[in-house]
């Protein structure tokens, strides 16, 4: 069980690190996917080892995967629109809304 949790921890913090440091929006999006996936691994693992008689964790994982797919589609659509309008997908420079 520890190995699974170590893997998910590594994925989670890699995601966090990428989310904070990447400038490219696509890279930020990928980092968010990493975080979500690490969470879903945790759900499945805890379900499998702690409550093997139940299925809630597994179903929640499936549910999360579906949500993240939808979220990714929306996010990519937004990024494409931003790129069309601003010719740029650098997070730090997308600050037109600030003023």
């Amino acid at each position, binding site marked *: 069980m520890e190995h699974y949790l170590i893997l998910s921890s590594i994925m989670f913090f890699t995601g966090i690190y990428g989310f*904070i440091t990447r400038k490219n929006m696509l890279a930020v999006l990928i980092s968010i996917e990493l975080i979500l996936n690490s969470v879903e691994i945790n759900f499945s693992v805890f379900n499998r080892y702690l409550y093997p008689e139940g299925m809630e964790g597994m179903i929640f994982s499936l549910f999360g995967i579906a949500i993240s797919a939808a979220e990714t589609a929306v996010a990519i659509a937004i990024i494409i629109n931003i790129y069309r309008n601003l010719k740029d997908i650098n*997070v730090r420079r997308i600050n037109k809304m600030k003023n």
Partner: protein
Amino acid sequence: MEFTLFILAIPLAVFLVAGLAGSRMKPRAAGVMGTVGIGIAAVLSYTAAFFYFFKIGNGKTDGAFADVVPFSVEWLRFTDKVHIDLGILIDPISVMMLVVITTVSLMVHIYSLGYMEGERGFQRYYAFLSLFSFSMLGLVVATNIFQMYIFWELVGVSSYLLIGFYYTKPQAVAASKKAFIVTRFADLGFLVGILILSFYTGTFDFGALTADNALLVVNTTAGASFLGLSVATWAMALIFMGGAGKSAMFPLHIWLPDAMEGPTPVSALIHAATMVVAGVYLVARLFTVYVFAAPDVLVMIGYVGAFTALFAAIIAITQTDIKRVLAFSTISQIAYMMVALGVSGFGGHGGLGYMASMFHLFTHAFFKALLFLGAGSVIHTVHSNEMSAMGGLRRYMPVTHITFLIACLAIAGIPPFSGFFSKDEILAAAFHHDKVLFAALWIIAGLTAFYMFRLYFNIFWGKKRHYEHTPHESPKIMLFPLLLLALLSCVTGAIPFSNFISGDNIPFDTHIEWGVAASGIAIAVVGILAASSLYRKGDSHAVRHLINSLGNFYQATLHKFYLDEVWMFITKSIVFKCVSTPIAWFDKHVVDGAMNRLGRGTQQLSSAIKGFQSGDVQFYAWVFIAGALIVTALALVM
């Protein structure tokens, strides 16, 4: 008696019409409208007086005049017991005041048609006169002390507006402000007094306050005291303070001489005959409470009145502005009425002072209005208020001369003119009650005769003068009120006043006490003869000799005992410097300072932290995660 409501409603309607639409009316039309309006109110008042005194007033079995309340609405409700009503109270003194006010007001309205002809703001003048009449009538018929206070302030406002009628004249503006501020200051005491009284008794109603010998006040305030004086004494003394302000008692009299800056008919109406007696009326209205709950205040009223009367009479002797002489004589005569109330007991012959006070109020209103209107007639011709610009006018203005003489004889207390009868009652009441006050009043009677005849001789006799324009008699419309008021000054003394008005509303009989009356007549004659010998021939050596021998005392009197300067010193040097300036400093530096510093601090704080909102999403995420980590760490440690 429901028609009495119209006595109030008509002047109010005239005020609204003349005030709102006056600029679109012809001046003459506004004047006639006002005159007709007050004329109708006067007729209604006479009708009310007739019905009250001869038909329905004598309803009670013990022969007392009962109070009639033909109209009353609840205006403000605080609790079931405490509520402010607006209504009309008809009782002997309010009916008497209705007659006095409407009569004098009607005379002044007619007179002003001539006197104010061609003045700018003629319509405004009549609007204000109607407002004043309305407020004063509302004051006298008030059913409760709070309604009285409301109209009391309205009267103050209309007085302010009329004193400042010539608003382009700086002295008039200053005088109007002075009158308003001084009386407002006094009204502060009045209000506090009302609040104390109603706090203990739980009512504002005159009927409830005075019922059963003011039993309610005596019972509810029993035992309560403050600074060694009973609460009832405090309340009644503070209420008297309001009355002292309006009625120009020492030391709150300073506004009245200056109020003479207003048009002369206004001085006659407001500052001689009606408004200034509001203080006397107030004390008379609450007389039962004064007698039974606060007799010590009544003693104080007597002495304040006597001092004021003497003080004003002495000043009146040296003034050279004829309207100011009349102003000080007004102060003196009103103080006379106050003394009469102060020496009065309750009921029967002991209540002679109360009756005498109201009687003097009644007669004084007519002859003092006559004096002012006569003076106005003289000023109208001579175009000056100064005695030095007059002299020998009896040849040019016979009617004014005769009517003025009648008024002078009336105020001096020479029979058979009205002033003699009322003054004699006051002297008799004082004689039986307090010999010191009697002596003071007796001397004042002599002084009154002296200064009135000094005025008379200086205007109408004296040396022949050469006038640039030959003086002429005033137009008929101004002479008619003079003649009518002169007639009233002759006959009103014959009214058996005690049959109508007394402290307990039970009529009683009076007779002239010839001992007192003879002494009063004697000193009045002495005063007249002294004035005659000094002033009849004009600028005499004897006068100058007298002035020189009096020296500083004369100067002090001429400057009204420097009372204005004392008040100026108190307000400027003490109140402004010692109280207002520190308060202003505190307000500027502490209150304002604290607020400013708070504002500036908020601004600085916000500019310090506004860098956080950079729009950089990743920075937000960083902060969020750092926060989450810190919370986690804390949770683990705990």
